């Protein structure tokens, strides 16, 4: 056969944006599953009670293994309602602050909470790991390393000129730590909480009075970023003339490469980089040994997904999904956290549920992205994935596992 420079086929770059979002979500879920299996391995985790956690999410009812099903359900519902109420109040507070342009305050609070999560919660988990594996390290080295890593994390969240890979890794790490903390909650509370948060997300983003919708509209009208911790996939622009895709790096939001002049103006071309105030996620602290509620910062997160730089091209379907040639997808950190909580809690039962829930969540994310293409506005990323994940979890636990084990034990497979 003759040799000729083969022109690049269309499937080589199609779907790149989706894979760029699916990869960090998968990594976060994998890390949480590993943490859960390693740290909870010895203890009895049928009710997630290896360590008892006191927090706002268990204020109403602390699950006891011997309660009846109805009691547990009632208690879990009560817990979730309180939690969702607290989250709603705090999100409205966030909208108010954003409306009053207190962006400096929000920014500092975000840095502070990032430091708390990385330093204290991360430190606790690393201590546990050191204890479990008898890793030889002394206090001073440990403290120095922990402090340094936390400070880099704070800077990654603060500064926009940080290498984007570091920012992304720290966001994934923060999501992982918060998700691990959530998996320590009792079992019924966790599941009902997940469903409640999915419903809250749906209401908050789509209802006309919902706090997240207000936030998005404010941000759009002012041409600023939403103040929240969001994971942003690196955008890739394929230059028509050349054969290699050129990468665009957003430097402080001000100077986008001008190839993107076809992008819609509503997104993040904010005039000054300081207004790109990213805000925090939650910082629930808990002192595990004493069971004491310390300073409880309920969460301020924006669990939504947004297609940035939606290119105005004719092929709306593929372009909008993010399968097009340009555009980045932003996913709120709250989504990372709750996906990982679901998978982490599934890991506490068995690994088959982990795989099933992982596939369900990725499918939900894909569906949400398709809906994003069709509707072209900020959408809640939680509901579809969480609902699918919960359904698959219960189907797998009560039906699939028995079937597969029965077939496998007798080495009958298809």
């Amino acid at each position, binding site marked *: *056969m003759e040799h000729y420079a083969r*022109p*690049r*086929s*269309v*499937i*080589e*770059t*199609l*779907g*790149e944006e*989706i*894979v760029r979002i*699916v990869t960090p979500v998968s990594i976060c879920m994998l890390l949480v599953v590993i943490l859960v299996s390693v740290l909870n391995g010895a203890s009895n985790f049928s009710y997630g009670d290896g360590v008892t956690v006191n927090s706002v999410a268990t204020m109403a009812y602390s699950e006891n293994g011997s309660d009846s099903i109805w009691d547990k359900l009632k208690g879990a519902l009560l817990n979730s309602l309180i939690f969702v109420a607290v989250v709603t109040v705090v999100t409205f507070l966030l909208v108010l602050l954003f409306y009053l342009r207190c962006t400096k305050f929000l920014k500092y609070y975000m840095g502070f909470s990032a430091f708390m999560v990385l330093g204290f919660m991360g430190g606790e988990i690393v201590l546990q790991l050191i204890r479990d594996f008898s890793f030889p390290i002394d206090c001073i080295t440990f403290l120095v390393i922990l402090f340094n890593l936390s400070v880099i994390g704070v800077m990654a969240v603060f500064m926009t000129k940080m290498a984007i890979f570091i920012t992304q890794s720290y966001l994934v790490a923060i999501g992982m730590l918060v998700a691990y903390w959530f998996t320590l909650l009792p079992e019924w509370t966790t599941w009902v909480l997940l469903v409640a948060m999915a419903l809250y997300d749906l209401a908050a983003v789509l209802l006309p009075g919902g706090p997240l919708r207000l936030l998005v509209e404010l941000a759009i009208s002012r041409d600023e970023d939403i103040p929240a911790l969001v994971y942003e996939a690196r955008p890739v622009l394929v230059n028509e003339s050349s054969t290699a895709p050129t990468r665009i790096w957003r430097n402080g939001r001000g100077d986008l490469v001008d190839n993107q002049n076809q992008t819609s103006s509503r997104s993040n071309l904010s005039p000054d980089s300081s207004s790109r105030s990213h805000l925090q996620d939650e910082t629930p602290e808990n002192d595990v040994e004493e069971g004491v509620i310390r300073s409880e910062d309920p969460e301020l997160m924006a669990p939504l997904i947004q297609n940035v730089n939606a290119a105005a091209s*004719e*092929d709306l*379907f*593929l372009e909008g999904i993010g399968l097009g*040639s340009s555009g980045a997808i932003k996913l709120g950190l709250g989504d990372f956290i709750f996906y990982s909580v679901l998978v982490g809690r599934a890991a506490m039962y*068995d*690994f*088959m549920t*982990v*795989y*099933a829930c992982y*596939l*369900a969540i*990725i*499918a939900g994310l*894909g569906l949400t992205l398709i809906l994003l293409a069709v509707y072209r506005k900020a959408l809640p990323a939680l509901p579809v994935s969480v609902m699918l994940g919960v359904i*698959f979890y219960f*189907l*797998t636990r*009560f*039906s*699939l596992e*028995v*079937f*597969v*084990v*029965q*077939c*496998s*034990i*007798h*080495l*009958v*497979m*298809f």
Partner: protein
Amino acid sequence: MTVAAGVGYALLALGPSLSLFLAVISRKPFLVLTLLSSTLVWLMSLIALSAVWRPFIPFKTAASWPYAIVIITSVACQEALRILWWRLYKKMEEILDAFADRVSKPRLFVTDKMQIALAGGMGHGVAHAVFFCISLLTPAFGPATYYTEKCSRIPFFLLSALIALAFVTIHTFSMVIAFSGHADGNRTDQYFAPVVHLTSGMLTLINLASGGCIIGIPLLYVVAAITLAYCSKVVWRRLSANANRIRQANLH
């Protein structure tokens, strides 16, 4: 039997797929998405089957005919799914070709189509390996191992990893054969995949007999080797036909 053994069993079942993934599929994001969706579809079919069979399990008798019925129904269901998958792929191909025309890129090459079929088949194979083998491997990471009574010389985990490897091969490559059969209208290719799937399912029934796994598993590998050989023949045929067509077109 320790982490090393657990990882070893997992790699035994999924090692070739991992290398295939890294070499071929991870380079093109579209293939990764195809892999994920076909894994999901296989899982959904498995859940549906288990929901249907749930009232009857665990089987009270030690006879083998309930398992035969399970296998026949499952294989039938999954082959129907393969046809559905083919229809979806046809539609996707039209969209992709239209998109390629719009951005003035070349249309899908033959190798692209075969790679998509490969990714789809690998999704099925990986789903099989994950749900029938890897998800049961959790005890293998601990200090002990497990033997079944029907095949008491070899650890259960090793057996399931070997069977999973054979099935991964069969699923991956029979999808390529099936897709090219449907594309060209070749009857043999179209019927090859269901027949091979059913045969391999039935072959695992031999494992129900005491000591049967010594015969069953090698036969399964024979089927996998036949699938591989036939697939390479089909691919060669298709590629050379394509090259001939291009040469003819260039002559005119």
